[in-house]
């Protein structure tokens, strides 16, 4: 492990000011710390944002759920307020990693990292989330750009994620038996204006499956999925699952999610 300078920022402004091309923000550190330890990443400065109070907390209003970026998975998993309006989001948080990860990992860290098999990005897409940063608001559809890539700019800090409350929703995943990351995760959300089917794990980046969304917007039942053909083209293929298997799992888990809505 290479040594680095540790800073604990008192507010967003200071954190942003400290950042450079060789720095990283630290929230839960569930990816950053292991990457440093394994020598996969090294930074001159680590800027801890956990002590910035304004970045943490959950607020439920009539139409949205707003979650501060350094809010831990366990806090979402245990939130009665969120459970009332979006139970699937609580279930998703309960199913991330293991208790150790849930006790430290944060929602902001998860989406800023944009791991192709992370759970939260699918919630952002399915629940028409708006990502609030210290300089702007970004629609989820425009936030996730590619594998481990987002539209965040250097020094930009996520402050909160604001989810729209759907009529119905459910998240189903097939966890990798080794890592328990999603091999495939499907988040189905039925909003007034239509249905979103967000898929994580299957491709290099989370995406909204337009065919499944359209079919379910027309007819919100699992049988509506039967006729949708899921192409394996562009899907990930590794020792755990071939593209063909992932395509099958998208369909199977989309059905499961609809049935569980």
């Amino acid at each position: 492990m290479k040594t680095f300078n540790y800073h604990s920022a008192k507010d967003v402004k200071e954190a942003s000011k400290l950042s450079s091309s060789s720095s990283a923000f630290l929230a839960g550190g569930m990816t950053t710390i292991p990457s440093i330890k394994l020598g996969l990443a090294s930074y001159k400065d680590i800027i801890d944002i956990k002590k910035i109070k304004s970045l943490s907390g959950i607020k439920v209003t009539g139409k949205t759920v707003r979650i501060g970026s350094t809010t831990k998975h366990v806090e979402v998993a245990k939130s009665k307020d969120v459970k009332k309006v979006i139970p699937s989001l609580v279930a998703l948080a309960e199913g991330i990693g293991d208790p150790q990860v849930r006790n430290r990992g944060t929602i902001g860290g998860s989406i800023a990292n944009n791991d192709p098999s992370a759970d939260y990005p699918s919630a952002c897409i399915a629940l028409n989330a708006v990502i609030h940063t210290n300089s702007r608001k970004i629609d989820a559809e425009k936030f996730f750009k590619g594998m481990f890539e987002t539209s965040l700019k250097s020094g930009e800090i996520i402050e909160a994620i604001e989810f729209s409350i759907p009529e119905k929703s459910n998240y189903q995943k097939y966890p990798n038996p080794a890592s328990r990351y999603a091999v495939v995760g499907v988040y189905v959300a039925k909003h007034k204006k239509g249905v979103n089917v967000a898929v994580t794990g299957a491709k290099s980046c989370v995406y909204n499956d337009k065919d499944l969304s359209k079919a379910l917007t027309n007819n919100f039942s699992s049988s509506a999925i039967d006729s949708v053909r899921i192409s394996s083209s562009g899907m990930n293929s590794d020792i755990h699952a071939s593209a063909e298997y992932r395509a099958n799992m998208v369909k199977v888990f989309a059905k499961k999610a609809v049935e569980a809505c």
Partner: protein
Amino acid sequence: MASLVGSRVERKEDKKLLTGRGKYTADVNFINQTFAYFVRSPHARAQIKKVDIAKAMKASGVVSILTGADIANDKIGGLIAGWRIKSEDGSDMKVPAHPPLANETVNYVGDHVAVVIAESLDEARNAAELVKVDYKILKAVVDTNKAMNSDQIYKDIPKNLCFDWLLGDRAKVKEAFEKADKIIKIDLINNRLIPNAMEPRAANADYNPSTEEITLYTTSQNPHLARIIISAFNGVAPENKLRVIAPDVGGGFGSKIYPYAEEVVCSWAAKKIERPVKWVADRTESFLSDCHGRDHVTHAELAVKNDGTFLGFKNETIANIGAYASVFATVTPTYLFGPCATGVYKMPAAYTNVKAVFTNTAPVDAYRGAGRPEATYTIETLVEKAARELGMDPAEIRMKNFPTQFPFQQTLVHSVDSGDYVSGLKKAMEVADYKGFEKRKRDSASRGKLRGIGLCSYFEACGIAPSPVVMMLGCGIGLWESAEVRFNPTGNVTVFTGSHSHGQGHDTTFAQIAADQLGVPIENIEISHGDTDKGPFGYGTYGSRSLTVGGTAIVKACDKIIAKGKRVAAKMLEANVDDVEFSNGEFVVAKSNKKKTIGEIAFACYLPGTYGEVKSPLPEGEEPGLKETSFFDPANFSFPAGSHICEVEVDPETGETKVAKYTAIDDFGTIINPLVVEGQVHGGIVQGIGQALYENCHYDNTGQLVTASYMDYTMPRADNFPEFDLGFTCTPATSNPLGTKGCGEAGAIASPPAVMNAVMNAIGTEISMPATAEKVWKACNQNKKKNSEAA
């Protein structure tokens, strides 16, 4: 005093181990200690053209950097293969040199090239990045099945063949096959596994220049063996100048039986720099460089009559032993594999032929069960297939071929002293509600799931082993065990054993045995192991041997204590020694009320005098003190056996397989502590289910280890399993006075075939381990296709 043998005494060691008070090698620190970090090969096969340490030597904190050239200059010997195997043609096995630091070539990813020793671990690791190694990369040999037809790795080893070994009689088998009504054939792969002990390997060597003594702390199942190898073969220090201590050890499963390059290098380096050298593997190093397990490719055939009677068996196996022949690498796929491959059956004719091949992968050695899981998997999937093809019930075909007379001369090697396989299988069927399976299958079907049932009846040869037998078969050492029972003057007891607990609970079970033998309360007995300076030489813990061999040595040493106690008691009680009886901790003169407790006798032995007069309680010529040693060499192996029945439920849409029900009925002879035995069975079963459904060591075709972390190597977890239904039958072993048979490996031996037979029963297709969701899903799809084509 009630007997402790057979009772569920809670593990004495758990208080320490579960509250963080254990002391492992990584917990040991010395003043002035340095830290070692190994430069390892990133290539599976390459020539080392140059190792440039100049820049690294200048890095912060670096104390020393040592390379293969240094170790060769100091004439430090290579790592050894401990068991000599001869090929069918009579020629000796061929093994390459295995220097602790590579000199000319590297032969697997993770092979040791140099060691950087620095003031801190971070400095050692950072400097290691600056060691420049110039490699000429060569084409790697990875695939077990293709190894004999690939590039030759070592100049003197054609076809990469270590040996081509035969056990059995080809002509008799040919004859038997000619008489068969049907021949059942299978091709299978026994998947390669990575041991994954909870505690990574570690070494901390301290050298005292004034006494010239090295003290090596290490993660070993077998510290005495480590000492003799590092002394006699590596030549680091004479045996009397090397003390090896294996403190608490957090699991091994075979991977910590023998010393590795790191222990040799740390001991040698500590002497060289005259400072302690500490090394602790990180998890990636464990994946890359711990010896792996299994890795067989097998073709087997069973000749049967239409009524299900077995006539003959042949087994053609290629065993991958990795880049070098590790200590027990050559016996694992031969004498630990071949004899058990005919299973628990009467088999008039049989042979096993094993071709052991070198590849550019980590060395492969003994891993829980070592050879016997591979043997049992072969015969038990074959027998199940025979039942299917003959239209017989899988239980019926097994019953038909079980031996019922004991001792039973098994086809290839063993004379099995005791057993009752019929009762074991019957009990398993009853506990598993075998008859109710069809109903449960219909219930699963109503939920869209496929349910399957699978059996496995096994026997295995463990409790290794009779020294004359194993040495005749090529073992470089005897496999007896020692014990020293030492009464302290105040009447409590320390028992030294040459075996070494690395999770098995010896502190408890061995104390139970000594408590019963001596009539001393269990709280007054300590078990001491793991230090070559304490207690006599021993052979460590593996091959389910510690209780049957080491436990028996304790009994024998206790017998000697009691014999001496009787002589002393006779003198003190003024009786004839033949009239002194011993029970419940008391020496009693027959038909009298005269007695002495064993504590009083111990006290008298240590303080043999009386104030004011010249008087000894000891008989004339008797030495003071009360301490006895015994070395026990068993007359035979021990042969645990049993039947396991597994039920799985498969989701055909996703291929996910759930173990729905698992029953294990085992015969371990006399059970000392059911709590400990059940723990062993649980652990073995989950390890076996891990092999069947989850675990797989995967190298890509360039020899890079793809499954080098827990992100990719699937360890089974608690939520993968149902409650297990365990039960026991008991036919005591006749080869040891306790009547015990080994129990440590049985679960891992029996469960893979039970699970896989259940999976194959559920989906109706042959499938290889591990039965991952995708593989099962593909098999289900193919069946669907076939069925729709047929319709």
